[in-house]
């Protein structure tokens, strides 16, 4: 077989990959949840916000968190402890490294002050349940398998990033308060709440539900899960779609703020996830995860929190500007990940697979 033949064969393979990639990207974009998200965004443009009633939206969030945890717990029980340990350690490490990277990179590409950079670090150091879930739905649609204990990594990655981000901001804040006096009154309040924020973050409701679901799934096992499968399993993708209607509205409202965000922040909100996602995929392979699992860890690293982190930051770091962090995480990074990021991380995971597995 000559070089020419080999080349053309490669080319041929490449064509197939391109076709496969396109069909895969369209599987993602044309899935009901992603299309519903776009419907939500469009409804904001048409000034007819298709929001769910608040209590239903909150119940939907509880459902998704608990269902993800429950399934993860059932799968965790079926896993070998040895297989789970290294990924958990790696996830904790990523939860510390990523927010520090955010804090440093933002100093370089934007003019944000340390408090806002710490707030951003808290958001990007934590994870997005919905992005994670959409990636699972995506892999399921492609029939690609992944480790069942991925929700464990979601739970593990939720907290450390927020704590590290807040600590980075607080370190600066305490320095400043010694220098400036005009704002000292604020810092009294800042101090008086300091006892609360670690508790608030670690024992937030979303973490409790997710973690509670994980433990309950672990305890009840496959047998107990079967009784509730039609509710927590069968309905999952449909409920996710409904939830994404609301997320689309919330993201759509942020779209008009993007112009004011400045080019540095926009570039960051798109490029950093790809960087963090690739880091997550490589770490996943090093931790022994399958291709699907590594991709999901990449998605966790690439995604930014817009529920747990904003709440924690608002309470513990009220001086931070939520306009900046929410526009970036909810207005740019979330839609990017949902629509093009997920297929990209899948391609990256595929491309890197041969290096590791």
């Amino acid at each position, binding site marked *: 077989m000559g070089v020419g033949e080999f080349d053309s064969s490669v080319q041929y393979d490449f064509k197939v990959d391109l076709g496969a990639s396109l069909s895969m990207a369209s599987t993602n974009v044309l899935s009901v949840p992603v299309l519903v998200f776009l419907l939500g965004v469009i409804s904001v443009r048409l000034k007819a916000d298709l929001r769910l009633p*608040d209590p239903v939206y*909150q119940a939907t969030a509880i459902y998704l968190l608990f269902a993800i945890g429950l399934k993860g717990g059932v799968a965790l029980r079926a896993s070998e402890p040895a297989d789970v340990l290294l990924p958990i350690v790696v996830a904790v490490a990523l939860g510390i490294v990523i927010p520090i990277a955010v804090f440093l990179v933002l100093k370089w590409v934007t003019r944000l002050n340390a408090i806002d950079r710490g707030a951003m670090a808290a958001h990007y150091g934590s994870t997005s349940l919905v992005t994670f879930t959409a990636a699972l739905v995506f892999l399921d649609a492609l029939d690609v398998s992944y480790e069942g204990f991925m929700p464990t990594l979601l739970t593990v990655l939720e907290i450390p990033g927020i704590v590290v981000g807040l600590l980075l901001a607080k370190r600066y804040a305490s320095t400043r308060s010694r220098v400036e006096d005009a704002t000292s009154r604020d810092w009294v*309040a800042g101090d008086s709440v300091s006892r609360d924020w670690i508790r608030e973050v670690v024992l937030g409701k979303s973490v409790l539900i997710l973690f509670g679901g994980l433990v309950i799934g672990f305890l009840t096992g496959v047998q107990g899960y079967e009784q509730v499968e039609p509710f927590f399993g069968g309905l999952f993708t449909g409920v996710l779609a409904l939830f994404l209607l609301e997320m689309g509205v919330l993201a759509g409202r942020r779209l008009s703020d993007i112009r004011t965000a400045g080019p540095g922040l926009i570039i960051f909100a798109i490029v950093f996830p790809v960087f963090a996602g690739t880091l997550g995929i490589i770490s996943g392979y090093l931790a022994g995860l399958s291709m699907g699992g590594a991709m999901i860890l990449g998605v966790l690293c690439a995604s930014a929190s817009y529920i747990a982190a*904003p*709440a924690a930051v*608002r309470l513990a770091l*009220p001086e931070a500007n939520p*306009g900046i962090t929410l526009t970036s995480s*909810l207005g740019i990074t979330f839609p990017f990940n949902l629509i093009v990021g997920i297929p990209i991380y899948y391609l990256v995971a595929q491309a890197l697979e041969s290096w590791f597995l």
Partner: protein
Amino acid sequence: MHEIDLLTIVTESILKERLIADLKIAGATGWTLSAAQGEGPRNRRVSEVEGGNIRVEILADPVTIARIWDMLKDSYFSNYAVAAWQSTVQVSRADRYLGNESQG
């Protein structure tokens, strides 16, 4: 009928637990809370994601109300979205709304 002060505070719903704790510290013997939405001149809120505003009413003696105003000025006005207003109303069982400290 007795005169008593009524303070209404509208703020971000995320502050619910903290505000109620602070009201008790300031000496309020009760509060009434409703869910609300709103817009104001600051309008910088995370609550959009978290479910809007809360509207809290507190009946108390002037001393307690003044203490709550101080608390709002110190810890809430500068960082959070807050609107607050006060008026004088009439109640029939005033002692219910008076803290121990100010009853002397």
